[in-house]
């Protein structure tokens, strides 16, 4: 099993160099949420050469659409959604400075190639552990696209948010390596 690493955005390529697939990466500080429609809108803004609603440089995007916050809590359940749906958009965001993505499920070869090129990594959070993962989220505020409801972009303050490194800067893939080890027949 990998080493345990603590990271805090904003991140530079050098911060990501030591990370290896299988590392337990605990993320603290501020991260941003976005899923399908929010990604589409971000790309439309880039196409129109407009500014993004937050400075994406060095940041991490978490693919999540949380449940509404019950009274007295910053957020409801907040586990990862399936990442391949964001594959169309991810390389474009890396070009403008995105350094990390949190989600679940394998990425396309194009996205893995883009991660090597632009210096970005992919963290896996446990799918279906939305109640558990919400415990690491200390605050949440909407920063853009409020009309999208659960899909709005939120800024989350997290403390030791637990992830596992799936894709590093060298094109390695924990999903492929892990499954190879346990496949029979």
């Amino acid at each position, binding site marked *: 099993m990998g080493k345990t690493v603590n990271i805090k955005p904003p991140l530079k390529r050098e911060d990501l160099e030591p990370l290896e697939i299988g590392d337990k990466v605990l993320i603290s500080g501020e991260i941003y949420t976005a899923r399908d429609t929010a990604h589409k809108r971000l790309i439309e803004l880039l196409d129109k050469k407009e500014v993004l609603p937050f400075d994406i440089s060095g940041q991490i995007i978490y693919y999540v659409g949380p449940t509404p916050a019950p009274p007295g809590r910053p957020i409801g359940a907040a586990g990862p959604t399936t990442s391949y749906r964001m594959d169309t958009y991810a390389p474009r965001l890396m070009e403008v400075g995105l350094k990390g993505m949190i989600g679940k499920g394998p990425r396309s070869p194009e996205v893995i190639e883009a991660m090597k090129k632009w210096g970005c990594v992919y963290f896996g959070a446990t799918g279906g552990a939305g109640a558990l993962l919400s415990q690491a989220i200390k605050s949440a505020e909407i920063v853009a696209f409020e009309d999208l409801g*659960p899909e709005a972009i939120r800024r989350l303050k997290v403390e030791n948010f637990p992830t596992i490194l799936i894709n590093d800067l060298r094109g390695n893939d924990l999903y492929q390596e892990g499954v190879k080890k346990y496949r029979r027949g």
Partner: protein
Amino acid sequence: MRSIPFTTIKEKIKEACIEANHVLGEDVLEGLRRAKEEEDSPLGREILDQLIENARIAREERIPLCQDTGLAVFFVELGDQVTIEGGLLPEAINEGVREGYRDGFLRKSACHPFSRKNTGDNTPAIIHYQLVPGEQLKITFCAKGGGSENMSRATMLRPADGIEGVENFVVNRVWESQANPCPPVVVGVGIGGTIERATFLAKKSLLTPIGQENPDPELAKIEKRLLKKINDLGIGPAGLGGRTTALDVHIMMEPCHIASLPVAVNLNCHSSRHREIIF
């Protein structure tokens, strides 16, 4: 004739939506615990621990098990001697969903297919009706998540493909899904009927408790063989590699056309959420 008030149905539906999303079924929990004992991968065991802990937090702190609280799917068995007093049954169900998803702080995940505009209240519910003899009304609610639904498929095999063709289709489907449907998954298989009937059977089979053997000995044998083949894929908990790719496989089968062999695979994530209400 027996009369059931509209509001009684609405209230019970509301309660079921909230409970199913907060309290994991004992059969699923037991399946996760058993999987942990049999899991070879240390990382896999850790993920299974997280899922067991997630269920505890959800239950005790009243946070939904998963942020994807699903589209609301219902299986209704309506006795022919039952009348609904004060409104229509589909309206009672949809109103229960509206109130349950609002008051239970559940995510509203229903939207327009093209504009993606959210309907705002998680309706319309998807309701399957079956008319049965008697004075009883049974409604089963499932919270069906998008991640596992997206990995589901139906196909029309040639009759010559037989059992082997069916098994290959099911195993390939799980293999191609990898980590996406949140393994360990529950695999629902529908065989026979027509294309939509096979898909319906696959979804209905997901209501079977984990660990329950098929009453048809031939299907029970196929289920057992499929479970082994699927767990030999090595996908494991969260898709990170391991022994536990599926908690169980359930098959439902009906006669089909002499020209066809319809098969559908409906996957469910480990957060297999359903509640049965008997009126």
